[in-house]
């Protein structure tokens, strides 16, 4: 037997043992611990507010544009100097300005750019406030009440400096649902 074959056979035996340890026992152990109260809800994404999907209807806050094809996730991967994509962005800006009855210059950048996952749950405060008049009107709520809801569902930076602030659209729309 050649020495490569000998090493490969030893390798196969080692690999099978390590497969049991790292491919069966390890994920099983992590899964078992993730069943503990306090972790279980996270592990099953029970409240699903960490993701946003498009919701049909004028009465909802609109999330960022998505390039994902559900159930899969993903971004547009369009480069900065892709002129075809410039047209797509311009079209989004026109649509949003029309929908919110404002000038195009008031449409914030996150409103016209696709997120990396296509499931980004957050929008900027500026984009949320832009949508307040329409959402209030369509739901028959006072604008102040809707603005309160936006504030309640704004996530700040962890420890005051980790990450970037944003308004969680999924949580906000659900709160809106129960407020009406």
């Amino acid at each position, binding site marked *: 037997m050649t020495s490569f074959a000998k090493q490969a056979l*030893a390798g196969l035996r080692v690999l099978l043992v390590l497969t049991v340890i790292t491919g069966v026992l390890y994920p099983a152990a992590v899964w078992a611990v993730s069943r503990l109260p306090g972790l279980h809800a996270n592990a099953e*994404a029970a409240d699903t507010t960490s993701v946003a999907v498009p919701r049909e209807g004028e009465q909802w806050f609109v999330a960022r544009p998505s390039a994902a094809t559900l159930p899969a996730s993903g971004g547009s991967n369009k480069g*900065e100097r892709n002129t075809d994509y410039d047209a797509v962005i311009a079209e989004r800006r026109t649509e949003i300005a029309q929908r919110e009855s404002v000038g195009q210059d008031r449409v914030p950048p996150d409103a016209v*750019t696709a997120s990396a996952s296509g499931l980004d749950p957050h929008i900027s405060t500026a984009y949320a406030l832009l949508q307040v008049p329409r959402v209030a009107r369509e739901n028959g709520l006072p604008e102040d009440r809707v603005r309160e809801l936006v504030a309640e569902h704004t996530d700040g930076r962890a420890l005051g400096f980790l990450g970037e602030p944003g308004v969680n659209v999924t949580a906000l729309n659900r709160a809106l649902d129960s407020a009406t």
Partner: protein
Amino acid sequence: MSSTVAGLLQVGLLIAALAVVYRPFGDYMARVYTSTKHLGVERAVYKVARVDPGSEQRWGTYALGVLGFSFVGVALLYVLQRVQSVLPWDFGRGNVPPGMAFNTAVSFVTNTNWQSYVPETVMGHTVQMVGLTVQNFVSAAVGMAVAVALVRGFLRHRTDRLGNFWVDLTRGVVRILLPVAFAFAILLVATGVVMSLKSGVDVDGQTVATAPVASQEAIKELGTNGGGVLNANSAHPFENPNAWSNLIEIFLILVIPVSLTRTFGTMVGERKQGYVLLGVMGALWSAMLAVIWAAEAHGLRALEGKELRFGVPGSALFANSTTGTSTGAVNSMHDSFTGLGGGGALLNMLFGEMTPGGVGTGLYSILVMAVIAMFLAGLMVGRTPEYLGKKLGRREVTAAAVSILAMPTVLLIGAGVAALLPSTADALNNPGEHGLSEILYAYASASNNNGSAFAGITVTSDWFQASLGVCMALGRFVPIIAVLALAGSLAAQRKVPVTAGTLPTTGPLFATLLAGAIVLVAALTFVPALALGPIAEALL
């Protein structure tokens, strides 16, 4: 607080966390690879696998062990994917097609974790756990084993033995990767990372795919693997839900490559030798972070392909860390970066993955570059170069040169041929010079075993699956064989005493030489290609 100040504080917290664990973790890893005792579970592994942990191997046998182990790894992972339809939790996703299964098998065994597949529609939970997660562990342990064998080459004299590959491999998995990954998988679940055996979850009437993410997420980052459990990788809220999980994942990416410089210093008995490597790695990492961050902050469409919760600072920090190591996980889409920002990520890979590089691979790559740097210094003063008490003669420099040149060779041939193929134009997602950048990035990622992508490019054709697979294999194993040959020839030498003519390798002169060698080799090799892609993009 401005985004920039918050981002700087975030970088500060990351560095502080790495500094806290650097000594204890680095020294712990040194003990793992120098201890003469076997743990009970390790003895059980050796017994069941019928390998003798007591016998030390020559460099050739050690290399055959790496090759044999990786070969059966590819075979097993290929078969698992090809019979997926009979395995549990496949959710009707069926058998993975042959070209894709080959590419994926090579990809995960070589620690590249390039993904030509969309996990949510192609990969079931069984292959993810029993196949992909396993290679996340063992491919990382192989990298550490090779690094340790090279360090032993410097340490030992007048011997032809480098250690036992099976022992180094098993210890890396059992004593380092497994406990750390387990603890951090639980911590990640606590931050909100998903660990579900279901195929999906209903969100406001639509289904979003789920998976057992946390267990693979922890080792994906810790082992500098980078293959996403879900398509959007660490941009997916189920893989990386918030700023905490983001910081933890970046920490995991960096912790082993950074701490291994301490392991190295401790093993060779002179800690400064490790600090100087860390200094060079850290300086280049910081410089590239500044470039990518500044470029992205001034992007015309800064938020395209980025998640709002990470913003520009959290995305730039992740992108720099994932390409400076050989990880390749992404929390933003590099394809949508600016010419300079995306070019920076590409350049990180073209440095040869040593700032600070992958798990083990970073350490052995920078040691090889140190050999090259000392050789260049020796040429300048007309003296046979030495490093760590070993003479760097023809054999040593040849092995180092082969190791360094493998990556550019396969990269430029692969990308060159791809650019000439008429079918490639249809595979690109962006026109003009950015299209060429997509091709360059793909072959740089494969040849450096990184795995990140300018992901707009469609790589499912037979040409891409096969050529990128070959680049991954050659980019991994040619350097490994050369590094082990170098280790073998170093170990066979006697120790040369330090004299007045010895160039000290702990000071700023050596650090400058080493950093210069890293930058120069990359620049001399890649400037023509970069000029047509990212440089053109950045200037136009």
